[in-house]
């Protein structure tokens, strides 16, 4: 992994310790089986907020630590490892970043401290159909009122404030909408990965514009994608390591199955893809921290490569575990279901391959 500063190392160690001890996969399973409406454990989220994880990319003057995306990526990698469910990505990264980049000082004062403290959950609502297409926006704001429909909004049921893309008087842009506005109606989605999401209908809901127009939409999305890629890296690494452990202990035909060369070479391929993926994820996060001009292409690279790797590793996790991997009692199914949701959110591999090619001019 990247060479870390001392602060980053401490942050990562803290995240690792907390997730392994307080939020192992069994905690996610428990939350799932309890079937709560939010798709995460609010008490656990409160602990995360207390540790400052919800303020990592928020400026200090608004209650954050302004620690950067590589720092937040370290946290997301660890939560991804244990499938820890929380609104960090939607709220503390995506919504917070939209307000940091596009908000007026009043808007920042109104929302950022509360997002940083975990008191408020925000989210980003951009898509209107089954496929990620942030430049196809039918939702419309006119006279300060938003009308339209957004699909698959992460943490859509939990959110108090929604950052919504819409056609405004000056073209497309992002708008702030309070979730308790009477013009907002939400349909809770029950997902295979047991996480929280909603389809949301807006009918003349009060909407405040953020500055930055269409450029802001892509900027915020790129930061969300990079954060998600970091989470995916953690999930893929854990899926791989759990599988590797199984290969070293499961005995068939008088040998541990990890001694079979065909499985060894498939493990080597996964390891290779994980190493290549890590480089992409870290490069994307660093580019964001450096406000480098190649953020878009590095983010699409990271999301696509990480998606391919997670796809492979999640399938191999089930296959290499054999029958036991097919049972709900085993973790393999949890990683598999989560993987497809992670791959799909904010654009799948095909979307980002196409975007990468477009950005390179072909």
């Amino acid at each position: 992994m990247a060479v870390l500063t001392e602060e980053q190392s401490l942050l990562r160690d803290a995240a690792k310790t907390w997730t392994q001890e307080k939020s192992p996969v069994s905690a996610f399973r428990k939350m799932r089986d309890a079937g709560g409406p939010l798709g995460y454990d609010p008490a656990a989220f409160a602990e995360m907020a207390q540790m400052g994880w919800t303020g990592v990319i928020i400026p200090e003057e608004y209650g954050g630590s302004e620690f950067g995306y590589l720092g937040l990526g370290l946290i997301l990698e660890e939560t991804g490892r244990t499938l820890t469910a929380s609104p960090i990505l939607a709220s503390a990264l995506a919504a917070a970043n939209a307000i940091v980049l596009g908000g007026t000082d009043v808007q920042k004062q109104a929302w950022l401290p509360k997002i940083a403290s975990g008191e408020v959950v925000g989210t980003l609502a951009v898509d209107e159909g089954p496929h990620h297409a942030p430049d196809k926006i039918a939702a419309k704001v006119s006279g300060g009122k938003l009308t339209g429909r957004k699909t698959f909004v992460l943490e859509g049921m939990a959110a108090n404030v929604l950052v919504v893309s819409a056609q405004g008087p000056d073209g497309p842009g992002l708008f702030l909408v309070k979730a308790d506005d009477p013009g907002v109606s939400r349909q809770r989605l029950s997902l295979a990965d047991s996480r929280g999401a909603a389809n949301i209908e807006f009918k003349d809901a009060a909407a405040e514009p953020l500055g930055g127009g269409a450029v802001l939409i892509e900027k915020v999305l790129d930061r969300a994608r990079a954060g998600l890629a970091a989470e995916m890296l953690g999930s893929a690494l854990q899926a791989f390591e759990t599988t590797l452990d199984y290969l070293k202990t499961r005995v068939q035909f008088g040998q541990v199955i990890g001694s079979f060369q065909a499985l060894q070479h498939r493990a080597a391929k996964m390891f290779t893809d994980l190493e290549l993926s890590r480089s992409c994820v870290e490069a994307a996060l660093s580019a964001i921290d450096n406000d480098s001009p190649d953020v878009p292409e590095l983010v699409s690279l990271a999301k696509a490569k990480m998606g391919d790797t997670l796809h492979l590793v999640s399938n191999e996790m089930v296959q290499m575990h054999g029958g036991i991997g097919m049972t709900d009692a085993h973790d393999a199914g949890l990683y598999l279901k989560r993987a497809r949701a992670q791959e799909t959110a904010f654009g799948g591999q095909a979307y980002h391959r196409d975007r990468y090619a477009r950005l390179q001019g072909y």
Partner: protein
Amino acid sequence: RVLAEEMAAIGAANPIGGMGTSMFGPTLLEYGSEDQKRRHIPPIARGEIRWCQGFSEPGAGSDLASLQTKCEDKGDHWLVNGQKIWTSGAQWADWCFCLVRTDTSKKHEGISFLLIDMKSPGIEVRPIRLISGNSPFCETFFTDVKVPKDNLVGPLGGGWTIAKRLLQHERSGLAGTGPMGRGGLFGGPLNQLAKDYSGADEAGRIADSDLRARIATHEMEARAFQLTAIRSMVESRSNQGPSAATSIMKNAGTRIAQERAELTLEILGTQGLGWEGQGFNADELAAVRGWLGGKAFTIYGGSAEIQNNIISKRILDLPDPLGPSSN
């Protein structure tokens, strides 16, 4: 070793299609005593009695012959202790045909074939919930279960041979079918689905050109598989003997079915991430469940790895690695 792997294929074969249980009748006809046939064949023929197959164990999956369920000779009865897994429909079954260990000093020759009444005291059945949310299989626990002496099929220690024969019945039953049908949830070709969910360009092509190329590759692979199924059948019927093409059907068919399920999910986008309830239609939810359930295709019924071993050793005549003596 190849035999061991073939047997492995049996152990896990039943969970998918229930082929194992439907092939039990012919096997009993061949190996059962007159008394066993008189008692069991008529209700099987009339479909009155449900059987389940007790082969696999937690420690004996692909390597079925390492099974441990103990069967002791107590003079006037057998005493069975152990645990079976992947017993399909054990929660509804009246009888179970089981592989049990009657001799711990020999691997294959220590296995016997036993019929067990599921109403016997000491049997506990726990359904296994799968990642798809279904529970078609069970764990079955045997604790001091008494079984009448004449429920042994064939000779003591002859269970492996019988199970192997059951596999052959199963193979002939499977020929030409394969899991293709089970993989496809939206019945038609994927291309129409793709146009419905991600649109078409002015020339009528799927708008996502990357997806389009992969759908074409997949549909062509599926067509090649169908053509091979036909060829294999025609060749087997003619005087050319068993077709080499048959050996690839399981792996190719299951791979293609899984690819289809993955492509379907990708086409559905976020509509392919639902579990239940609002916001998803029945076909979309079925696609997700089918995708998950279909991950078993390459595990049960002789895993993809075992199938590759069989092709490389039996068809291609590649040698075993030097190592422990083959079974």
